[in-house]
């Protein structure tokens, strides 16, 4: 099997200027956990997943605190702000996206797709030619290919 045999060609994408709420609405409607960000020519710019949305909620320096957040239960003023977060709605795809994306060519073997998913700990891989989006393969697509569409002799 090749990547093109399992990929979905009908990919839901967002533009770089898409509002964070619009992206959330897509997640809610489609049950996807991530969407590619593409420009008008379908060139891949990046990827927004639920993890990117969550990271907007946290201040940037939190990754430098390491284990030091373990013993703090009440974050005072930060908690209040976390719940209101006035600027939250203003974020657009371009601000929060993970720049670039893990892509494969449509002719690569499925084994490579699985290996890339595990190596980069991603749930979905974009299929592209010259960085132009052609399809998407999710973990579900691969599982389906193995459990459902196989002739077992």
């Amino acid at each position: 099997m090749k990547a093109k045999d399992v990929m979905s060609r009908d990919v839901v994408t967002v533009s770089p200027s898409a509002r964070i709420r619009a992206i959330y609405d897509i997640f809610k409607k489609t049950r996807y956990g991530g969407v590619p960000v593409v420009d008008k020519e379908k060139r891949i710019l990046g990827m927004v997943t639920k993890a990117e949305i969550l990271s907007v909620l946290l201040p940037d320096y939190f990754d430098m605190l390491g284990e030091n957040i373990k013993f703090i239960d009440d974050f005072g003023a930060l908690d209040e702000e976390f719940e209101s977060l006035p600027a939250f709605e203003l974020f657009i795809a371009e601000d929060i996206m993970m720049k670039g994306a893990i892509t494969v060519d449509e002719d690569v073997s499925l084994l490579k797709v699985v290996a890339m998913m595990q190596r980069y700990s991603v749930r979905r891989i974009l299929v592209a030619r010259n960085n132009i989006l052609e399809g998407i393969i999710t973990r579900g697509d691969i599982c389906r290919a193995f459990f459902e569409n196989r002739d077992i002799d």
Partner: protein
Amino acid sequence: MIGPIVASIIVLGTLYFIISEKMDKVIAVAVGAILMSISGHFLGFYSQSKALMAIDFNTLGLLLGMMIIVAMLKKTGFFTYIAIALAKLSRGKPWILMAILGISTAFISMLVDNVTTIIVIGPISILVCDILGLSPLPILMGEILLSNIGGVGTMIGDPPNVLIASASGLNFDDFLGHLFPVTVMVILVSLPILIFIHRKSLSGKTRNFQAILKIDPRGAIKDPKAMLKALSALLITFVLFFFHDIHGLYPSFIALFGAGLALLLLRPNPEEILHDIEWPVLAFFTCFFVIVGGIEETGVLSLLALKTSALAKFDIRLYKILLLWFAGILSSLIDNVPFTMIMIPVIKSLAVAGIDIGPIWWILAMGVGFGSNALPIGSSAGILGLAISKRSRTPIDTKTWFYSGTVVSVVSLACVTVLILLGFF
């Protein structure tokens, strides 16, 4: 004649690449060191054995030993414990918080290098400010400046002091006797200035002080036994530094003894500890020693010293003041390590010209230490502190640095100038 010219070109070329950041500075000094050794070998001004001897293993051992001890102490959560415990003492008053965190940062960086101090204190301080609903900018700014100031206070506080100690033979107690009092004075002068500059964001009381009171800082300590072991290794190291007259051990052997003791007591995974050691810093020192050794052999540096010794003989006070500000201004622009390394042979040559260089060493240490605060690029703690601040909601901008860092730097150097005029140095 060709030797001195080639050696000078190599030194200036290396410095150009370090300052312009056109390539990683470790690569710049590595190439410089190799070029210096090879050209010295063929042109006859430097030999391979002399290049190897130029590497000061006393400095490298001291740096390495301290890095190992601190790497282990850092992992125990000790510094977070200190920061939270001290924050609770502020009674919710922002200016008291700034003073407490600033002073403790200065004292920590007397024992630990400035960069580590900022890495361990910076992010937790931003968190404390955020919990209190306070702008972290003044507090982080104060910590960066005071860590550089504090570093001047002891023999191991800052790499230039380590270099000066190794080159001059001045010991831990000499540094404690001469630089520690000045450092305390500069802290006491700088802190009120910083609080005054940032008085607007430090006024009033914080409304969420209860949230800080609720935190039990002991939670930060991952393993109390490990912490006590690491702290005792550090303490024993300092006691040995202090009583060096009795045992006569070199600083590097003391630091490595402390590191060995800490490793023995804590039994960490060595691979993890080795990973925490700043190898690029050690590589930079090693290579720059070779470069400076080469230019020293050509006699260019002693010529430089000879030219300036006329002024020193004419008016030694004026000479000291000029050196202080020259060192200060230069180290605000470039990393103070290469500058100190080049100045060491120059100062040694002054002794040959019959000048009492005892006080000159202190002037150099204070000039590069206090001067490095003038611009964010002047110190590693500044560069790193700025990067940490960019991750908070109120990043330090150039204008803020100018009002805080440049002012504090000029005031610190002015304090030293007064001390020189009064005859203390």
